[in-house]
């Protein structure tokens, strides 16, 4: 039976597949939404610095300076202004897609609650930077944004006096404008950087750079758009007039038209409620994370490989607390542990060939599925095979369901993550009756636990410890990753692998027969 996949997730996975076809897994933009958003911020920052050189931070001069850049200096200032606007908009789109992705793939609850909780206000920080940016142009839209933002602020009980009144004819001074300039250029960006830091501070190996190809492509696309449809201003702001038709940037200013219909207090209530609802989503309902990894000090030499590999920064290395001869030991922070088991795959002691003790113990293990049980279930699965081409299929609980692949030729074992597989387990399977080992799991570039796929690949290529030994039968190992909706593809790939292994076996037995003949002839 196929695992039931909800329609949102199914649609999302389909979209993801389309982007993999277009960009390849390494450049799939849906796998790099966070880094893409940061890339767009870089474009915003650099273009913003250029604009600041020519920008006049005064009521009288702001509009004229922006107009000068847009029209007189269209080839540089105009392009920079357009890049500034479009990159800001692209950042909002990528952030919204990023949120939707985490929601659709159910990656916002459980151990991921912190990233989600801090991510929601980060979006608001981005929006407020955009709002002050529109204010600074000081055209009709800037005036509209200024007046309505002031009304929103005035409605807060903590505010004394009326900011909105400052915008009535003759009551506005350059001081407020300078303050806005300071906020947009320095205050808000610093807050935003802090918010991003908070957002990722429970993760390790955080990527903040988008893949080069994707960055170049996005920049070129922004540049083409900037040349074809340059950003322009409305008419200059006139305090005695009310703008009639406005070309709002809906990515940033979508809340403002509501102020025409509702009092500011109700708009606050709506936005605050939506924000709070989004923030508490990880607990609606909560998702249980399995028991945290446990360290077995008598098997741990404190090498720190598990701490290096942990995707959620849940393991740290500290001075030894027992009498062992090793200098260090590792400690798990249960509050941050995702129970992915990647640390088990990282541990040199997770070697199923070890027989020193009655039970197989490793330096760091998952109490709900210890390495001893992984070995026992591998043994049992292989013992149940009766076909001619015996395949051991390892997979993970967050990708294609393996149950339906179980047959007389195929033994299956699903783990928390394929990053949990110590390379020696593959050799162990070969040694204990598997003609071939097939590893599947989350799609390439999209590991549920972030880094499991990456670490497994590096271990198999010998670039990460513990590495698959040179003498391992690499021609009998394959890795093909498949999401829950990729079952048909996985079936085809598995059948191909079975044929390859059968051919390999035939070749081997023919060679053996030849050798036997030659030996008997001799």
């Amino acid at each position, binding site marked *: 039976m196929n695992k039931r996949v909800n329609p949102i997730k199914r649609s999302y996975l389909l979209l993801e597949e389309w982007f993999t076809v277009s960009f390849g897994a390494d450049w799939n933009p849906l796998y790099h939404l966070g880094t893409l958003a940061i890339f767009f911020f870089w474009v915003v920052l650099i273009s913003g610095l250029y604009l600041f050189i020519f920008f006049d931070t005064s009521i009288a001069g702001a509009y004229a300076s922006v107009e000068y850049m847009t029209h007189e200096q269209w080839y540089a200032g105009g392009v920079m202004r357009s890049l500034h606007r479009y990159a800001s908009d692209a950042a909002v789109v990528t952030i919204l897609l990023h949120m939707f992705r985490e929601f659709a793939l159910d990656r916002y609850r459980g151990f991921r609650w912190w990233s989600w909780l801090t991510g929601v206000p980060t979006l608001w920080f981005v929006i407020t930077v955009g709002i002050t940016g529109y204010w600074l142009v000081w055209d009709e839209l800037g005036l509209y944004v200024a007046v309505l933002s002031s009304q929103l602020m005035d409605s807060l009980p903590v505010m004394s006096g009326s900011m909105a009144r400052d915008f009535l004819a003759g009551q506005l001074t350059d001081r407020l404008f300078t303050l806005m300039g300071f906020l947009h250029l320095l205050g808000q960006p610093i807050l935003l950087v802090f918010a991003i830091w908070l957002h990722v501070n429970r993760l390790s190996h955080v990527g903040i750079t988008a893949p080069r190809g994707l960055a170049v*492509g996005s920049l070129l696309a922004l540049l083409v758009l900037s040349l074809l449809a340059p950003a322009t201003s409305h008419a200059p702001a006139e305090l005695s007039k009310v703008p009639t038709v406005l*070309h709002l940037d809906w990515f940033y200013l979508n809340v403002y038209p509501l102020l025409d219909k509702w009092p500011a207090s109700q708009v606050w209530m709506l936005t605050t409620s939506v924000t709070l609802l989004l923030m508490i989503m990880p607990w609606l309902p909560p998702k249980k994370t399995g028991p945290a990894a446990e360290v077995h000090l008598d098997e741990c030499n404190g090498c720190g490989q598990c701490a290096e590999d942990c995707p959620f920064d849940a393991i740290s290395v500290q001075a030894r607390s027992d009498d062992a001869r090793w200098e260090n030991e590792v400690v798990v922070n249960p509050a941050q542990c995702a129970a992915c088991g990647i640390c088990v795959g990282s541990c040199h002691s997770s070697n199923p060939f070890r027989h020193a003790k009655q039970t197989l113990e490793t330096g760091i293990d998952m109490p709900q599925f210890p390495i001893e049980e992984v070995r026992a279930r591998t043994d049992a699965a292989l013992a149940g095979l009766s076909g001619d081409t015996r395949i051991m299929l390892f997979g993970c609980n967050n990708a294609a369901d393996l149950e339906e692949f179980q047959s007389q030729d195929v033994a299956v074992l699903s783990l928390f993550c394929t990053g949990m597989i110590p390379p020696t387990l593959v050799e162990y399977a070969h040694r204990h009756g598997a003609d071939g080992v097939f590893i599947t799991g989350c799609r390439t570039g999209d590991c549920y636990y972030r880094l499991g796929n990456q670490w497994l690949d590096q271990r198999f290529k010998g670039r990460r410890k513990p590495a698959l030994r040179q003498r391992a039968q690499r021609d009998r190992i394959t890795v093909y990753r498949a999401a829950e909706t990729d079952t048909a593809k996985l079936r085809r790939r598995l059948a191909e692998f079975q044929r390859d292994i059968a051919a390999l076996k035939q070749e081997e037995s023919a060679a053996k027969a030849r050798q036997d003949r030659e030996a008997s002839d001799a």
Partner: protein
Amino acid sequence: MRKVLRYPLQALNYTLFMLLVWYFSAAPPYAQLQPDQAVITVAFSHAGERREECRQLSREELDKLPPNMRAPMDCPRERSPVMVQLLLDGKLLLEEVARAPGLYDDLGVDIYRSAKVPAGKHTLAVQMNDNVRVEGPTYTHEQTVTLEPAQLLVVDFNSETGSFIIQ
């Protein structure tokens, strides 16, 4: 898929993405005001009258107070709410009742309310009551105004002179 075949697909994806960014960065247009409309905004700061009148303390009452607190007048801090009504051509256009802010309801109120009206010639009447001890308006003003389309007409109040300013 071969890498070279991916480029047209990537170009298509970038185009779609940029079309989305471009369109919603300035469209669809939002009509805040119809072409034949203007806006009247009532905006002023004003402290309402005290809820209770100040009272002269008697000699006996003053003697009971510490010497440094013997102010001759006892003025309760609470101020009246400020009620303002705007009538356009005799019809109520907007009404606001603002309670005095502050822990003891003793501060001045800030009023900021706007209404969209048809452009053209109108009779504009403003009425305000800032004293709970007085029935009916304490300040009134009536004026004929001619509003241009998209004009912002501000109704202000000068607390010192006790008069409305319409500009």
